[in-house]
């Protein structure tokens, strides 16, 4: 299937593009793969039709959004990629197999990981308190949206439990959707499956009618981004846990008793930082932990570099597996003298921890979610 380039360019406001190259210049994968978003835009501007199917590099994009925040003309190059992926997904041909699996699993099992639906609350095992089901009770002050990876992945489950523990300790009335929770669809949308995502949004909005909540808090910046920006108006405000914890600290509901004597730096998850400008809260929390010494990486905040785990890249290796962005990120943190590279995202946690293992730097640095440090300080 061919894309009507004229229509596409108009829909995505590409006609304003001055071909400055800031998008590609900032794109973290542009130096290691064939992906050149400025070049793609140029083709869309000069051709009548355009055929994306054979462009394997389209799956290299992590949707980190660097191109978009750098574009002087307010064009959204990252959306162009999603748009083009949409044509491929619609066609069915050229979708990398593991991405197809993730999509299938999301629609049939409600999670992208291929796990059983009825195990979605298995992360609660071992918690010394009951986690309330908001659908049973009909209401809670806080809806704890767990997300697929935080619910199932054994490396991330402790983070999920830590957050529940903080809620519990701070006396927050919170509940989850239990085994009825389904994938947020953030990655589904970024894979280009627009229709599938639209129906996920519809279903969730229906479920929301069955309970009342004062707010929603997520573990993952990816879920946070989807609910906050792509679900339309929800009946409650959506927060990432770093925002909520900042509130708890400010109001004195969360205090720290124990020291965390570590030198820590922080990696900005793209979906928290570049997508949603949540830069200060994670740092605020880290700097409140007693005994903790904090130092920023040179490339931080809006200048941060993607770990390569987003935009569907959790499941697709991309066209160049030799060079991994996460490796440089870990080396930078080690060079800084940090003992802990803190993150606030399950994908970053897994990707960066893999990098530490592959580089054999386990004895030098540890990758930890902020929640894992917070729980140590309680």
């Amino acid at each position, binding site marked *: 299937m061919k894309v009507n380039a004229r229509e596409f360019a108009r829909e995505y406001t590409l006609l304003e593009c001055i071909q400055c190259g800031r998008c590609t210049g900032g794109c973290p994968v542009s130096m290691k793969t064939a992906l050149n978003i400025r070049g793609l835009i140029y083709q869309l501007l000069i051709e009548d039709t355009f055929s994306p199917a054979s462009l394997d590099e389209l799956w290299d994009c992590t949707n980190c959004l660097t191109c978009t925040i750098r574009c002087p003309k307010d064009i959204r190059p990252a959306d162009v990629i999603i748009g083009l992926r949409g044509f491929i997904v619609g066609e069915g041909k050229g979708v990398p197999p593991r991405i197809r699996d993730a999509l299938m699993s999301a629609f049939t099992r409600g999670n992208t990981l291929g796990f059983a639906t009825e195990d979605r609350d298995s992360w609660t095992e071992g918690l010394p308190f009951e986690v309330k089901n908001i659908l049973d009770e009909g209401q809670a002050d806080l809806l704890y949206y767990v997300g697929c990876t935080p619910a199932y992945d054994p490396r991330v489950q402790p983070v999920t439990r830590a957050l529940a523990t903080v809620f519990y300790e701070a006396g927050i009335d919170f509940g989850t959707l239990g085994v009825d929770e389904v994938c947020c669809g953030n990655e589904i949308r970024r894979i280009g499956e627009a229709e599938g995502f639209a129906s996920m949004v519809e279903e969730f909005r229906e479920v929301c009618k069955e309970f009342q909540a004062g707010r929603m808090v997520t573990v993952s910046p990816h879920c946070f981004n989807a609910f906050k920006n792509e679900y339309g108006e929800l009946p409650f405000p959506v927060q990432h846990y770093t925002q909520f914890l900042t509130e708890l600290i400010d109001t004195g509901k969360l205090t720290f008793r124990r020291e965390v004597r570590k030198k820590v730096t922080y990696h900005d998850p793209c979906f928290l930082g570049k997508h949603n400008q949540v830069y200060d809260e994670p740092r605020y929390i880290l700097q409140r932990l007693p005994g903790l010494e904090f130092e920023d990486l040179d*490339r931080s905040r809006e200048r941060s570099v993607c770990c390569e785990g987003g935009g569907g890249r959790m499941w697709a290796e991309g066209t160049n597996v030799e060079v991994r962005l996460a490796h440089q990120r870990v080396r930078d943190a080690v060079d800084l003298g940090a003992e802990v590279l803190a993150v606030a995202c399950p994908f970053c946690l897994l990707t960066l921890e893999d990098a530490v293992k592959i580089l054999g730097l386990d004895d030098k640095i540890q990758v930890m979610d902020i929640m894992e440090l917070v729980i140590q300080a309680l």
Partner: protein
Amino acid sequence: MSDEKKQPAALVLGAGIAGIQTALDIANAGFQVYLVERLPSVGGHMAQLDKTFPTLDCSACILTPKMVDVASHPNIELMTYSELLGVTEQAGMFRAKVLKKARYVDISKCTGCGDCAKVCPVVVPNEFDVEMADRHAIYVPFPQAVPNKYTIDKRGWPPCKDACPAHIDVQGYVALIGQRKFAEALALIRQTIPFPGVIGRVCNHPCETACNRGQYDQPIAICALKRFVADWEKETEPLPPVEVHRDQAVAIIGAGPAGLTAAHDLALYGYRVVVFEALPVAGGMLAAGIPAYRLPRSVLEAEIARIQALGVEIKLNTPIGREGNPSLEDLRRDFDAILITVGAHQELQLRIEGEELEGVVPGVLFLRACNLKSHGPAIGLDLTARKVAVVGGGNVAIDAARSALRLGAELVTIVYRRSRTEMPASPWEVEDAEEEGVRFQFLANPIRILGRDGQVVGLECIRMELGEPDASGRRRPIPIPGSEFVLEVDVVIPAIGQTPDLGFMGEGKLAVTRWGTLAVDADTLATNLPGVFAGGDAVSGPATAIQAIAAGKQAAESIHRFLQGEELARPPKGLPVVPYEEVDLRRARKQARAEMPKLSPDIRAADFDEVELGFTEAQAVAEAQRCLNCAFCSECRQCVIACQAHAIVHDMQDETVELEVGAIVVATGFDLFDATLEPEFGYGRYPNVITGLQFERLSSASGPTAGKIQLNGQVPKDIVFIHCVGSRHKQVDVEYCSRVCCMYTAKQAHLAHDKVPDARVTVFYMDVRAFGKGFEEFYDRVREEGIIYRRGNPSEIYKRGDKLIVRAEDTLLGQTVEVPADLVVLATGVRPRDDADRLAEMLGLERSEDGFFAELHPELRPVDTRRRGVFLAGTCQSPKDIPDAVAQAKAAAAGAIVTLSQLRRQMDEMEDGGEA
């Protein structure tokens, strides 16, 4: 002929190249011009440039003659350091209000020699050099400035000086200490108070509480620095006695800090001064109250000796109004004015049972006994093995308790009815006392002193709790019924407050307040009796030494006015205080405050040796250098001393003038884009990422490196220029092209190559806009010199090792590249002035969508505005280069001249009509 004054005049606002050109043209046509510039010098941005494209003329060389012309032209009145405040219009004429800001330098006297700047201790970043170099608080922005006159940058009063009751020039002496000018610092303190050594030890230093640095990290150790310079001066060389040139005499009753300060000031005014003191020593509470471990006697005595050396006579053992001594009436007869500064030395009674017992000693009497050895009741000065209770929470209580320890007491307990936070004593004194072993019974109140055989054996107290806040804002203590307990003690020292002992007044004609203090006029310190003034604790009740000193100064001033037959009330003093938000923190780095070395608690509690040991010189200098120079000018007055032309006027006032003009030309120019708004380039983070204007200063022979391209002494090997920073960029709200950056980058790339021939110079561009006369040729020339032009706008800059990495897509190659650099120059664009809004409203101008002032018609009326008689010149209308700015300036001048000529004709006609 028409009257000279009726000649319609023009107002030109802004003296950059455009304003200068307009002013010269209008003046040459025979009209009067007021050229108003808000900075201390004319010249605008062009004065900051090194060379100008496309001719590579030296910018200063072609501009300076014009700057000199505007200053010397008979038809131009140059008003620098001035701002337009408002404009009204009537019958085609404008009335403009212009604020001439105080320069604190009389420019009719200043010769521009710069002797003042050499001694000024305050160093701040120089705006003219875009912070690449420093200047002093008194400065000319650049050597070729016009007028070549100095200006003092004074932002107000620093909070320290404001908070000090005596308004000591804190920032001034701190700055001088920072420069190791200890003698000058001490002299400056002595200009305000005669007691630097005393106040450097005993002050409660409200200045430090107010110090802005407290909000940044910790306040400056202002008090200890004062002590440092006082101690630094080993032997006090007394001032030569002042000749008494006025025959009037003043009597002062009470030789405490208030009385002695007044005596000092009055002696300097030239009066004969006699101080009458009841005690056998001078110094008041400083001598009789404050223990020697806080204030060694030698320090006090030396400072009093300096006052005596001025010719002040102190008569000791002379209680006025007492048997065998002169009365107040006697003094009124013999002296021309009288100051009463008798302090508050009468201890308040506890008003409980047992106060008459042996072993009860009022706090003030106890301290007097310790200090004067002889004076006081018979408890003796050996408290070995005795248990002491001190009642109260003020400094007298703490002093009494720590003195009792030093006299050998086995146990000393302070009983205070509220909690620690409500204690009026200085917290550091409380801590010192605690370290030495003084115990505290908070929330307890004595109800009875228990006695046996007329001797104290215990103090019965009741526990208290805190209720609602009372009038003083502190929570009121309430007794808890049934909570009585007994402290076994054999000495009780009440120290709950003091009142003045006004026994000396005899006839009782002096008005007294209901608190038993003397009633005075708060501004003049005059009592109800003419010629009699009062101040210090006798008026305020027990307060602080520095407040007493302030009162002494105030009284001396009033008495001087009184004796000179002047109005007593004095004009208000002071400038607005500089709040923390306005402090310049660009150079501030966090650094902890110096700690005062002290004797260790176990050693010091054994005797009356001084506890605090004072800063070392290195400590003092480092501590002084922490000062943020809140007000820029520190009022240290070194410049006053240095200036041979006597041009410096620290109390100069702003001035407002009204000008009547027939035409106004706005030539206020542009601001540079703030490059921190594109954080991906790391401006403000990496010192070797600079803006185009900074490069001009770097390259300029009169700049910080005398024209060498180097940073921190390093010559860059790889230099990268980046086009379009802050231009054509929707995300930072600048949609337009700044028009000058392509060409100035070409010029700068050429200069970089010229000055560092072996450097690799790369320019990243999106397009090169070489539209003007000779521009394309210049661009060709630059490329022929070997400068590399790469198409693509970089996306970010980061560090790798000691190099910067510029990451960009070379769009012609279709490849992302990482280009190493030692110096990156951002071609930052041009913005409308920050205050364009205000000016537009004042002058009734419109602004175009880009924010610049709007011309009446983009093609046909390029210099007219919607308001008749108001014209635009230069970059305030849109970004442009010098040739265009000058061309437009000449057009604006022509417009103004037409308007002025029409007005002149009208005036002439009216005059002719009148004569006919």
